[in-house]
């Protein structure tokens, strides 16, 4: 078990000794059962840190945000940041290090092992409750949760409301950490890699398209999937066109003809381009933290697109994102024996 007291003490010590400028962790939110991310800069505030199955967020995102903010600042604070990281989150840190987005000394990873469990999927829970919201979810032994709705408590097996990514997780302990809380677990009992994507693949081409057309049509283009993803750090996304330079000489025709890969309109065609391009940009980089799927307000199974590519990368190229900071990235490397039979 992760000792939250020890974790708090560790965070307070890091701040006290001035080793980090802030600790990014989880605290109890006011918005429902899930925790909320917090940035703590005072040792006393570490008392609010928590660790429970509602700590779903991938906090590596805030390392990216800080790096960007410092790069834009005239007086950057270059002290390192500490981050509470689960197995998946630590893989995200590893990919960011692999891509030289920041340096190892810029980050202190406070690893937490998910051990036998994982985090709760609020949508699965809501689906069980037909949209109603639970007020609290707690671990209840290794394979179950205690769910509180109003005044009633019930016990739900972990396999029913654990996030898919946790059920399929192959590395529940942080691969990369400076300090680890909880027991390091190599392989978990529940691990069923690629279950969801294999189930989706089993459908026929027509069924697959019918399902994805339905999903792409529902996309609101709120871009929460992109905003929450630690790997989506491009200064400008291809679906926006904010860097088109306009001068006094720019004609109306130039403006009208500027490259716009994607229109603002939501709809199946535009949204398919956005989601498929995004999936390709994450090929070999997605660490399966499942955040894109979790935040989607209309519940599009976005994780499937990424795990499909993750599965191909694993099976065809023996590549796993975030496994090793020193490995060459999936798409900037190749082998002679890469599949060639699909090429005419």
């Amino acid at each position: 078990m992760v000792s939250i007291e020890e974790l708090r003490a560790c965070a307070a010590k890091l701040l006290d000794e001035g080793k980090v400028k802030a600790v990014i962790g989880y605290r109890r939110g006011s918005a429902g059962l899930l925790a909320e991310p917090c940035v703590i800069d005072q040792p006393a505030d570490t008392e609010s840190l928590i660790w429970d199955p509602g700590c779903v967020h991938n906090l590596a995102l805030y390392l990216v945000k800080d790096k960007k903010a410092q790069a834009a600042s005239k007086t950057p604070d270059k002290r390192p940041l500490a981050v509470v990281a689960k197995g998946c989150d630590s893989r995200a840190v590893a990919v960011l290090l692999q891509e030289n987005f920041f340096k190892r000394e810029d980050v202190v990873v406070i690893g937490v092992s998910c051990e036998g469990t994982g985090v709760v999927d609020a949508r699965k829970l809501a689906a069980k409750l037909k949209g109603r919201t639970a007020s609290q979810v707690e671990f209840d032994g290794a394979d179950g949760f205690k769910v509180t709705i109003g005044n009633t408590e019930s016990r739900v097996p972990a396999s029913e409301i654990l996030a898919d990514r946790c059920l399929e997780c192959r590395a529940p302990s942080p691969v990369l950490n400076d300090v680890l809380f909880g027991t390091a677990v190599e392989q978990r009992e529940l691990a069923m890699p690629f279950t969801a994507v294999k189930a989706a693949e089993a459908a026929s081409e027509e069924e697959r398209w019918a399902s994805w057309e339905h999903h792409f049509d529902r996309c609101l283009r709120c871009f929460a999937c992109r905003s929450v993803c630690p790997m989506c750090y491009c200064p400008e996304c291809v679906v926006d066109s904010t860097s088109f330079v306009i001068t006094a000489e720019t004609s109306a025709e130039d403006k009208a003809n500027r490259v716009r890969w994607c229109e603002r309109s939501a709809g199946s065609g535009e949204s398919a381009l956005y989601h498929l391009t995004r999936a390709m940009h994450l090929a070999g980089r997605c660490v399966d933290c499942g955040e894109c799927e979790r935040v989607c307000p209309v519940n599009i199974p976005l994780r499937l697109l990424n795990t499909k590519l993750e599965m191909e990368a694993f099976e065809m190229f023996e590549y796993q994102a975030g496994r090793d900071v020193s490995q060459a990235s999936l798409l900037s490397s190749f082998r002679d024996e890469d599949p060639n039979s699909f090429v005419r």
Partner: protein
Amino acid sequence: MEKILCKESFAGWLAALKGYDLYAPAFADAVWNHARIEAGTTPELDHTNTVRSVKEFAFPQREVFFRFEQTKGGAPTLTATVPDPAPTVIFGVRPCDGRAMPRNDKVFAAEFKDPYYWARRDKLTLVGLACAEPHSPNCFCQALGGAPDAEEGLDILMTDLGDRYHVKGVTGRGIEIMVRGSDAFDEARAADKKQVQERHAAARAVGQRGVNDLGKIAEAIRQRFDDALWQDMARTCIGCGICTFLCPTCHCFDINDEVICQSPCSGERVRTWDNCQFADFTMHTSGHNPRHDLGARLRQRISHKFLYFVDNHGTQQCTGCGRCISECPVGIDIVRVLDTVSQP
């Protein structure tokens, strides 16, 4: 007009509404949303609240203003595309969403009467359903002058009495569809009315989240425009568009020309939802962005709802539906923000 509708007679009422497009909440993909229903079916109306609000029935995410075409050397031709939808009835509208519509109406009729909005709005009949209890822990309608049984903005208010509904015609448009289905209704007796009052009182008595000093908030926002608290509260904001796209009163939009073909030049001028949380919302052509960070964007969202709208229209642009709290990926909580701003 007050009537009683036995739940078995619901289908009979709908059958009488020939020529109308009918919508009711449906639970699909683990979320509640409005779905088309056929006359003769019986909607269950056991929903919480839809993720997407009713605003899109008058203000869809994509609206074509006109089509254009120009052959080389010829004069451009424009084709008007003001919509002419069938009269539409939406069942199960929660009172918070009902109260949102008059606020949207103010915006689209204040200076200019928006023909696209009103072409749809004038065909819309909103059949509300009083809440028996808050459908989410983040409901705060009563803090903003609403109620679980508020009639404002609704054409009909229905109250669930177990095996039957109490149906109250609020506007002429609402009474019209009740008259059309008059065979399905029974007269409401004094005992029924008493029961309705009891239900409403019980629903009002259930605790909701509250907003402190609502009257002082506008001034507090004005005073604290440059306060560091905005930055502080937006520290974990990821800058996605969930809060505004799902909001029943957010109405900002963008207008683009979507060129379909270069030669002959043809395309559409399109209005799409836009979002003050996106970086390109205020981006100038020079590249300067006056709202350059998430703190400024959070301030804008709150100021628009609780200061500028109050100045311009005499009411808050928020009805306490709680969507922006429940769906926020990182737990940014508008009630907490308001309390923080109004605390000296």
